């Protein structure tokens, strides 16, 4: 789910061809929407890691290795999501610069300056998109690995396996 949401935000980011100097083109609104969506997911990731960490300490026996690995996968995705947000923050500043240039009286080199700032803005958005796609790809790989590791336990094993042996594998300790 998180994977699809991150890839969806990356898909909705404005493309190079849509980057017009006119704010009415919607670049600003697209950026604002992307930042709002992304911050929501980012906060969700942070709270999920925090909650799971507390649960692991409170109920160590209920905390399976799969749950722990899933939590670690979400935590890893937070780095790329944060970096995507940083790139979008830079894009906001570049949008401001672009606006300023658009409404300045054109002088010598104005067209080149405009083009340069558009290239910079495009670079930040491309960077954000790349980070989000990378986060989604990594989450997909982690999900596949976790699913592959979930081999069903034979019923006989369930009846003979002591409960303590199951819960002792991932250790629950407080730091």
């Amino acid at each position, binding site marked *: 789910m998180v994977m699809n949401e991150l890839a969806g935000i990356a898909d909705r980011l404005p493309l190079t061809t849509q980057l017009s100097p006119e*704010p009415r083109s919607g670049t600003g609104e697209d*950026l*604002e929407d992307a930042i*709002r969506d992304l*911050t929501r997911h*980012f*906060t969700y*990731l*942070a*709270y999920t*890691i*925090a909650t*799971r*960490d*507390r649960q*692991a*300490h409170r109920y160590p026996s209920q905390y399976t*290795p799969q749950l*722990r*690995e899933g939590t*670690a996968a*979400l*935590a*890893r995705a*937070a*780095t*790329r*999501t*944060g*970096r995507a*947000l*940083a*790139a*979008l*923050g*830079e894009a*906001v*500043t570049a949008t*401001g*610069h*672009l606006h*300023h*240039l658009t409404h*300045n009286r054109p*002088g010598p*080199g104005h067209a*080149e*300056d*405009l083009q*340069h*700032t558009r*290239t910079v*803005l495009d*670079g*930040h958005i491309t*960077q954000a998109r790349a980070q989000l796609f990378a986060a989604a790809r990594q989450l997909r790989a982690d999900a596949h690995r976790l699913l592959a590791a979930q081999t069903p336990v034979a019923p006989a094993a369930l009846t003979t396996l002591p409960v303590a042996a199951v819960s002792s594998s991932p*250790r629950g*300790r*407080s*730091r």
Partner: protein
Amino acid sequence: MDLDNPAHLRVVAVRLGDRARAVAAAASAPAGYLQGRLGDETSNLADLLADLTYAVTWQLDEAVRRPRLHTPELRRGTAAAARAAIPVALALAGLGQAVAQLGALHTLDAYEPTEEQQAAVHRTRHGLEQTLRDASAQLAAAAQHMNHDADHVDDPPRRPPTPSEIAAHATAGTLPPAVPTPCGPNPAR
């Protein structure tokens, strides 16, 4: 927020300063409290970034709709808010790194408590604290800049920046290099 109002810009500066102190406090929070504080600070900073982005994009739209109302004061205030988006977003990226480091600590918790494991926990915890301190420093600097911008937003008109000066400011790719996520010793299980 009224971006041509110095008082409103100072409120943003106060919010930035508050977040800088809160992130610094999270860095020295005792074990068990850090997780909650990291979640709260991520949420608070995300709100601040969303507010700044909204203020800037709304103002840019207004400038097109009502160009006569787009005064030099408003233009300066909008530029100040747009500039503040960078350190806030970079601080958020730092918190993302901190969340990943918290995840690494969480993973390390499942390992047998060997000397290697203890060293890895210590190193990761130290890295996490440093990440938060760096994020706090970014926010404190942003607060200082915002206060400075608030002091000068209603200065008498001065020479506007030339297009080349504006373009020179818009430099690409200032993201810091990613800190490698620490990995622990071989799992005991």
